[in-house]
């Protein structure tokens, strides 16, 4: 069945491979999120009034929050903010072209979550050399993969995202608590679980 797009365009939040999933989640502009199935994958979409949305902080936060809710229910390839398609036909065409890559990515991230860790140096304390590597080494042991984030401040000792098996979440959290206890001069900012934004590299374009 074609999704009615007369009143707008299709905003895509992510792609899943769980056709039986009952979402019950509202999307941006309070529009319901609908699934558009293509073979054994589905794009999660809602109606959106414009084709090229400007990046607004509140909507970007909502987008992240919606994806967080979806990720709690199923494995999802998250799309970045502002992925809008003209109509269902174009979206299906894109899905058909990227179907194989999507399935491979879904297999990679299935059963896993992303956790973010930032370690900040105290303004009056220079952490000794090697501390960052030591912390990273401990956390890498508990993750499938990790990626370095942006080094946007000289105060940042570490800024990494970790892809972690869901069943290792509490072990990872415990490790963070122990590291915090051990390194009292450092501040840890621990966030997540997030959909694995940093570990998917599928770039699909809108209109």
């Amino acid at each position, binding site marked *: 069945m074609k999704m009615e797009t007369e009143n707008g365009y299709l905003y895509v939040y992510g792609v899943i491979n769980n056709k039986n999933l009952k979402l019950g989640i509202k999307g941006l502009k309070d529009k319901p999120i609908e699934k558009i199935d293509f073979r054994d994958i589905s794009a999660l979409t809602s109606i959106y009034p414009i084709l090229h949305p400007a990046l607004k902080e509140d909507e970007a936060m909502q987008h992240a929050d919606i994806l967080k809710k979806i990720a709690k229910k199923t494995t999802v390839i998250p799309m970045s903010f502002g992925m809008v398609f003209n109509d269902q036909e174009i979206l299906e065409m894109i899905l058909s072209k990227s179907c194989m890559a999507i399935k491979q990515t879904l297999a990679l991230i299935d059963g896993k979550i992303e956790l973010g860790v*930032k370690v*900040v140096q105290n*303004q009056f304390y220079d952490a000794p050399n090697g501390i960052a590597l030591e912390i990273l080494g401990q956390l890498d042991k508990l993750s499938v993969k990790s990626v370095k984030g*942006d080094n*946007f*401040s000289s*105060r*940042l000792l570490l800024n990494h995202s970790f892809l972690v098996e869901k069943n290792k979440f509490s072990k990872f959290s415990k490790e963070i608590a122990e590291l915090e206890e051990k390194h009292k001069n450092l*501040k840890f*900012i621990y966030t997540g679980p997030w959909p694995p934004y940093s570990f998917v590299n599928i770039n699909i374009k809108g209109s």
Partner: protein
Amino acid sequence: MIIIDDLLKSLKVLAKPFDVIGTIELLRDIALKEKYNLKAINNKIKENRLLFEIGEITEKEYNEKRKALLEELEKAKEFMENLPKDIEIREM
């Protein structure tokens, strides 16, 4: 206070003794790069958030600085958009 000569030396630039126009143009370019470095402003926005999250600055301080930085970012974007096509400012 940074002395012009020190600034130039720090940038490994050797100014010709009487190339005043060249020096002025170079300093103007350095100033523009400093002032309109979008990446640097974005980094300051993120750092401001970071300092708020670790409790090093208050919510009031965070909001004030954020507002100022967002204004700076808007001005920088506007400046970059209106640059003549033959001038390029690379982010450092």
